[in-house]
């Protein structure tokens, strides 16, 4: 048994948190005037920036009246001495995909409302995520920053089918739902919410899920270990309980 697991057996987390306690979440909106929506999320000492730029594109042929979102994440070497420059690797891609799925599958953004002209023109939201300080659980910080950036989107004016950057209509994009993402770690038999960087090194398994009002919209298990069905139920219950508490922070 490693020392981290030993301590957890005594009911103690390295930073003194309860097992189901999230570090302090701070959201700062409109961090870049040049984005249609942008935000900074601090989750403890973890810090992530997210921004949304809008584009007018053509819809997919199988959904001619729907716009879309495209999420990209960069694990910048500015945020962690072990990260290297280069195209997104598996870890960055997973973060981008989890943010995408939480928003897409919950239908938080109504893609039909992003239709400008059916079969021809739709809005595409390009969401870019940049990590600036990695102190563990980049996934949830990235998700919260992205959700906050989306919540604040200002719709730009359009002239001759081109976006007039910096000029906005009075329309605000309304999120239909506000799904919240949670990441749990498992060390030995212990389930902990929002693993810190120190805890991440000892994780046997990890489970990320997005929930909204007692509905589960995305899940992803990672790590070499496993979960029992009971543990998964326990995790879902904690997420449902924490959902409202985190939602409140997005004012």
């Amino acid at each position, binding site marked *: 048994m490693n020392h981290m697991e030993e301590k957890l057996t005594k009911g103690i987390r390295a930073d003194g948190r309860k097992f189901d306690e999230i570090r302090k979440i701070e959201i700062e909106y409109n961090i870049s005037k040049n984005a249609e929506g942008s935000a900074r999320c601090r989750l403890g000492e973890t810090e992530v920036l997210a921004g949304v730029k809008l584009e007018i594109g053509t819809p997919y042929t199988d959904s001619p009246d729907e716009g879309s979102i495209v999420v990209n994440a960069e694990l910048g070497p*500015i945020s962690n001495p072990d990260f290297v420059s280069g195209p997104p690797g598996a870890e960055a891609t997973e973060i981008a995909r989890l943010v995408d799925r939480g928003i897409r599958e919950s239908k938080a953004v109504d893609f039909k409302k992003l239709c400008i002209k059916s079969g021809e023109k739709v809005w595409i939201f390009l969401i870019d995520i940049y990590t600036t300080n990695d102190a563990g659980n980049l996934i949830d910080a990235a998700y919260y920053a992205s959700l906050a950036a989306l919540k604040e989107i200002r719709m730009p004016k359009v002239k001759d089918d081109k976006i007039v950057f910096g000029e906005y209509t009075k329309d605000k994009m309304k999120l239909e739902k506000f799904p919240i993402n949670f990441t749990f770690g498992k060390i030995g038999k212990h389930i902990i919410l929002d693993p810190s960087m120190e805890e991440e090194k000892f994780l046997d398994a990890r489970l990320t899920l997005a929930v909204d009002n007692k509905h589960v919209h995305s899940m992803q298990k990672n790590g070499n270990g496993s979960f029992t069905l009971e543990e998964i139920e326990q995790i879902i219950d904690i997420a449902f309980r924490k959902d409202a508490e985190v939602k409140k922070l997005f004012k």
Partner: protein
Amino acid sequence: MVYSKRASGRKFEELRKMEAKVGIIPRADGSAMFKIGDTIAIAAVYGPRELHPKFLQNQERGLLRCNYDMISFSVPERKKPGPARRSVEISMVTEKALMPVLDLTKYPNTVVDVFIQIIQANSGTRCAGICAASMALAHAGVPMKGLVGAIAVGKVGDKIVVDLDKEEEDFSEGATDIPIAMTGRGKEITLLQLDGDISKEELKKALLLGEEKIKEIIKKQEEALKEYFKVD
């Protein structure tokens, strides 16, 4: 050609409002934020740390490696993530702007990595990046002779100005943009680039204005460092 009044309402020799902060990225060995007008740069320093691959190592002294990048939503038209020719060049001139004040002889075979990100851009991003990087290096405790301050000077219409904003850079009747960096102590010029059309006399006038204004910038950097290292 007459440029009688700056659109921003500033005097010709007036800088935009500055903000500087040290220690913004806890994970890094040194970090800082530098804001001037609507331009915001952050920088983090990692190292000195062992340099890989080994054949790049220098047995005499450590190396400085800078990486400048604009985040995609820092500009009105989304910048595709990843390096471009522009950022590769700026990374290189940033290295050369900072190297003259560094003494890495005590750290052979190592590298000092400096990562600069532009969060919000309204001209002068390379200079803001150098200002942030210089503070981050000092914060990291890398041996330095002094700070480096940077600013763009230039000519807009018929006027010599300092700290051009986007509107001035795009001035319809022509603008000359001259980003410069200088050491605080010896007033040595460590970055000098120029794009435009300017006479020798005007260039001299612009550089003298830059020298004057960089003093203000270095003062701001020093204040931020003092604030960080303040003992309560």
